[in-house]
């Protein structure tokens, strides 16, 4: 095995003589998310350049790729391509190839509106020659690719159809919100436990219905499969070159997961397979929305991403950051007033000054910020060069570059203040508002990010200024003719457009915002869960891994009464329909299906079917006892085959007798007097054998008097049976 050598090892990456044919490990990095989740910020700056704990996201991804031993990266730029390229140049990723082990090439395209388009462009370039890593530029990870790559390559040797390996990670979704901690909907995956093949993938499982539909072919062709809803998709894929051509062949593939993965899983003509690789101790997460921005930032601060942490990861243009106690990271040149309180898990960037009596907790503050006195900042992300004047209060919000908050301004939870916003004195920015200098585009396509930066910087030269007055926390009507002076002198106002809060309509703001979910909402959901929590099935789906044993007859011995009565009712309904003329075979099939779905035993079926037959008889015979006996006999004669189908063993026949007894005692008392007359009839029609009757009588001997009623009633018949048996025995001798 010549491939045994570690690809991840950076040391010997160049001098690999034993495997001359190997191509360098390549990666395709999508520097565009093709979504609108980060608007309005992404109107002015591409998502991959947004600072995550004061370092642009793409730097995390690139340095991870470099650590993982990737030798060549193609950065696919689409929106704001110029900005991305400039950043790559500035941060030293492109340019001096000698200093780096990893070559970074920017690929620019303005036509791509989806990941699918991007990969088609990559295919057109013809630069990918071997297996490659497909990753988005907003992924933070510290995993080692060595094992996953080796697995992928070994599988490829055995089976050339294994085109992709998906990296997944264990993570529990919240029972209440049905979201992962990264704010994504929970993903349901079916994985073959031994081969780790991915069989089913659903990332838009409907949380309200809590049901997934799995094709029965999947169940048929796999003896065992595991259904997971506790896995997180890391959006790191190891792909074979075929993946690119697949995208080209299927020009309607747009989304990596929704179209491509599901497409491959459904398509059984080509037979391409996708496998998974679970990572245990290492970290990987993609920033998909503001909730994950918050979660990943906190993970970085808590060092789950080590060595991708602020004090270790330092790039050329970043200043040295030191870790102090309680997870406080401070850059070297911070001016901190003595009375300012910096709480745990905070990051303070270079050349930032913080005034007296400020309280800062769980927040990230960028470089060059100026924070006045008595400012309270909690759980927020303040980017670079922000000015916050005295007495402001910012909680659980994101404040972009060059924002100016005047004295006494309050930013309520979940706000997004984009670049260069100015908030006037004592203004309250209402919760979950998104404020930008740019107007919200009126006609937008639902799923793609089409903002092209025509100017070099990507920031529009003369943004349409407008001032919105907001009084007492309520966004007011915009008045277009205001200029800068107005907000400076005016008592209140926000300079910029407040975007209508719910832009996607169905998605509620609080689900994917930076702010934690409000307590009322949680209580609401708690309430909702407790109301429809009658049947435990949904709890099961949340907490357990189902292992479905397909070919073994797993027998569940304990049957809840509850289930049984339901089952009985359904059988009766089915039977009623049969009376209307359904063929007997179909009836048997239906009952069997019911039995499986309630996971009951054969004997239960016998009881239920018998019950239905007798019910039909009793309903048919409205009036006299005589009549009832006759209809019963008719019914039994008609359905004897059906009953025989279920009375194959003595146990099942016993069940029928017991059922009969129970009916006479409890539900349909009219049979009570007829017991001894019907019993011989059952015997005649071979529904019940003599063994069963005798055993039944034997069992009842020790029972209470009340229980013996029917045994006594049919004493004569039993006696006769016994004698007949003895005679048989005699004959045999």
């Amino acid at each position, binding site marked *: 095995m010549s491939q045994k050598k570690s690809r991840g090892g950076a040391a010997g990456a160049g001098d690999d003589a034993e495997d001359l044919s190997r191509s360098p490990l390549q990666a395709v990095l999508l520097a565009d998310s093709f979504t609108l989740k980060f608007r309005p910020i992404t109107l002015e700056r591409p998502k991959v350049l947004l600072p995550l704990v004061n370092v642009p996201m793409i730097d995390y991804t690139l340095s991870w790729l470099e650590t993982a031993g990737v030798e060549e990266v193609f950065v696919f730029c689409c929106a704001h391509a110029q900005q991305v390229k400039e950043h790559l140049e500035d941060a030293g990723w492109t340019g001096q190839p000698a200093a780096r082990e990893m070559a970074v090439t920017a690929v620019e395209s303005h036509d791509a509106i989806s990941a699918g388009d991007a990969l088609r462009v990559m295919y057109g370039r013809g630069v990918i020659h071997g297996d490659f890593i497909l990753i988005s530029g907003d992924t933070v990870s510290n995993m080692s690719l060595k094992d996953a790559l080796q697995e992928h390559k070994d599988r490829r040797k055995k089976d050339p159809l294994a085109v992709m390996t998906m990296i997944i990670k264990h993570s529990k979704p919240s029972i209440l919100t049905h979201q992962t901690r990264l704010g994504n909907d929970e993903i349901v995956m079916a994985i073959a436990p031994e081969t780790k093949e991915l069989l089913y993938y659903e990332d838009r499982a409907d949380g309200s219905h809590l049901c997934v539909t799995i094709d029965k072919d999947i169940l048929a062709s796999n003896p065992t499969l595991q259904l997971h809803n506790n896995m997180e998709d890391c959006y790191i894929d190891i792909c074979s070159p075929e993946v690119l051509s697949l995208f080209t062949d299927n020009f309607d593939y747009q989304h990596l997961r929704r179209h491509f993965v599901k497409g491959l899983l459904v398509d059984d003509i080509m037979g391409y397979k996708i496998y998974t690789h679970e990572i245990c101790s290492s*970290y990987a997460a993609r920033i998909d929305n503001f909730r994950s921005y918050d979660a990943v930032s906190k993970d970085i601060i*808590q060092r*789950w991403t080590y060595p991708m942490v602020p004090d270790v*990861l330092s790039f050329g243009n970043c200043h040295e950051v030191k870790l102090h*106690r309680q997870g406080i990271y401070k850059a070297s040149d911070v001016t901190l007033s003595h009375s300012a309180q910096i709480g745990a898990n905070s990051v303070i960037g270079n050349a930032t000054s913080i005034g007296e009596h400020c309280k800062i907790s769980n927040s990230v503050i960028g470089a060059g910020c100026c924070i006045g006195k008595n400012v309270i900042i909690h759980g927020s992300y303040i980017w670079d060069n922000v000015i916050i004047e005295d007495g402001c209060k910012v909680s659980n919000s994101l404040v972009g570059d060059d924002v100016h908050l005047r004295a006494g301004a309050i930013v309520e939870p979940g706000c997004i203040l984009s670049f260069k916003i100015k908030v006037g004195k004592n203004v309250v920015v209402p919760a979950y508002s998104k404020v930008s200098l740019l107007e919200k585009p009126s006609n937008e396509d639902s799923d793609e990010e089409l903002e092209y930066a025509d100017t070099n910087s990507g920031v529009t030269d003369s943004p349409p200024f407008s001032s919105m007055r907001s009084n007492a926390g309520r966004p007011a009507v915009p008045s277009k003719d205001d200029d800068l002076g107005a907000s400076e002198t005016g008592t209140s106002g926000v300079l910029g457009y407040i975007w209508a809060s719910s832009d996607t309509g169905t998605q509620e703001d609080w689900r994917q915002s930076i702010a934690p979910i409000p307590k009322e909402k949680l209580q609401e959901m708690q309430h909702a869960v407790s109301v429809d929590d009658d049947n435990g099935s949904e709890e099961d789906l949340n907490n357990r891994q189902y292992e479905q044993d397909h070919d073994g007859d797993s027998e569940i011995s304990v049957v809840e009464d509850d289930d049984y009565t339901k089952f009985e009712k359904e059988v009766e309904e089915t039977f009623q329909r049969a009376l209307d003329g359904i063929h007997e075979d179909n009836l048997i099939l239906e009952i069997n299906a019911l039995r499986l779905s309630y996971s009951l035993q054969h004997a239960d079926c016998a009881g239920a079917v018998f019950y239905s037959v007798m019910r039909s008889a009793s309903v048919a015979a409205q009036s006299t006892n005589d009549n009832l006996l006759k209809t019963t006999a008719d019914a039994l004669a008609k359905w004897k085959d059906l009953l025989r189908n279920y009375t194959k063993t003595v146990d099942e026949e016993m069940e029928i007798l017991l059922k009969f007894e129970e009916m006479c005692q409890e539900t349909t008392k009219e049979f009570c007097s007829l017991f001894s007359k019907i019993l011989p009839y059952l015997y005649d029609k071979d529904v019940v054998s003599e063994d069963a009757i005798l055993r039944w009588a034997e069992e009842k001997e020790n029972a209470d008097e009340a229980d013996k009623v029917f045994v006594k009633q049919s004493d004569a018949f039993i006696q006769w049976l016994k004698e007949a048996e003895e005679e048989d025995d005699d004959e045999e001798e």
Partner: protein
Amino acid sequence: MPDVQPLVSEFVLKLKRRKVEGSHAVARQTAELLRSVVSQHRMGSTNQAAALADAIRSVGEQLISANPIELAVGNIVRRVLHIIKEEDISSTAVGIEGLSVTVDSDDEYDSGNDDHPTLSAAVLASHARNALRAPSLQTLLDDIPVSTALSRSASSTGDSDGKTGDKSLKTRKLKHDVIAAIGDLIEEIDTCYDQISEQAVELIHQNEVILTLGRSRTVKEFLYAAKEKKRSFRVFVAEGSPRYQGHVLAKELVEKGVQTTVITDSAIFAMISRVNMVIVGAHAIMANGGVIAPVGMNMVALAAQKHAVPFVVVAGSHKLCPLYPHNPEVLLNELKSPSDLLDFGEFSNCMNFSTQDGTPLLNVVNPTFDYVPPKLVSLFVTDTGGHSPSYMYRLISEYYSADDLVVQRKSTS
């Protein structure tokens, strides 16, 4: 030196990404890198030693900032600077010896203040050698400004005096000597295990019980050496959570036929009363005799002190650091990923910030190192023999020059 820059930045990246870890590997690779820096260095016509030292400093600065936790990097950089200085002095001294024998024999320290140019160089050389042999705190503190001033004047005078042909010969000789000395240093790093292990038999006696924590290569070799000399002894290995390197050490010891018992870290105090000696490795030895060691070591040292068990630290001389541990928590420790302790998946719902009030309720701290104060250490065993903690500063002054403590490129005037 454009040719070495790729090498340097490659090593810097490796350090930054924590791809090279462990004092020995780091020390060795640093020394090798500096050797190639020296060999690639183009010698100027004037002031060669200072220029060379400057080149080393600028490289060293980058390396140290790349991973300030690996103190061995700084140690090696300082060692190389010291080597350059020494070689420079000796070559100057040799050059001058022919000119004025009388001056050289004149070992009078006070005459260094004499204004005579030829004299000053010689005096400096002898003085430096003096300082080497018997340094005291006083000379160390007093000499910083003097020696730098002298070295400048020394090299300038040497250049003005020397003829051109002689000079090129001398420069080549200086470079050659420095490279050879760095070669010796690398060899010293490589052979430190053997040097230390030689002393094992004197320290480990028959039927003794030894306790160690985690896994250190130096300790392993030390114990191997004692075993090879037919000593029979037992070893308690504390597993060294969270990395559990103790398990690896236990395996290795058993393969060599050493009686080994693995215990949890928390059982150390219970077991220490049965132990005759604690032998541990170190990450770095500080100038005051304190030790930076894997986490949990302070606990072992305190337990050993409580039961009056000797606490022996074995470490190669490349781990000798001329700095003082002023603020160990901030300066000299590193917090690693919590995933060593907890499984992220299992605890992911404890870190769901959307349902908590935004404040992380679960915090995990995973420090790498402990600081053991000098009073808890009974003995240091280095490749030069056994030393008490209070002797460390003297040992350090043998290896480092006092003005190199802060490795920073001097502003060239």
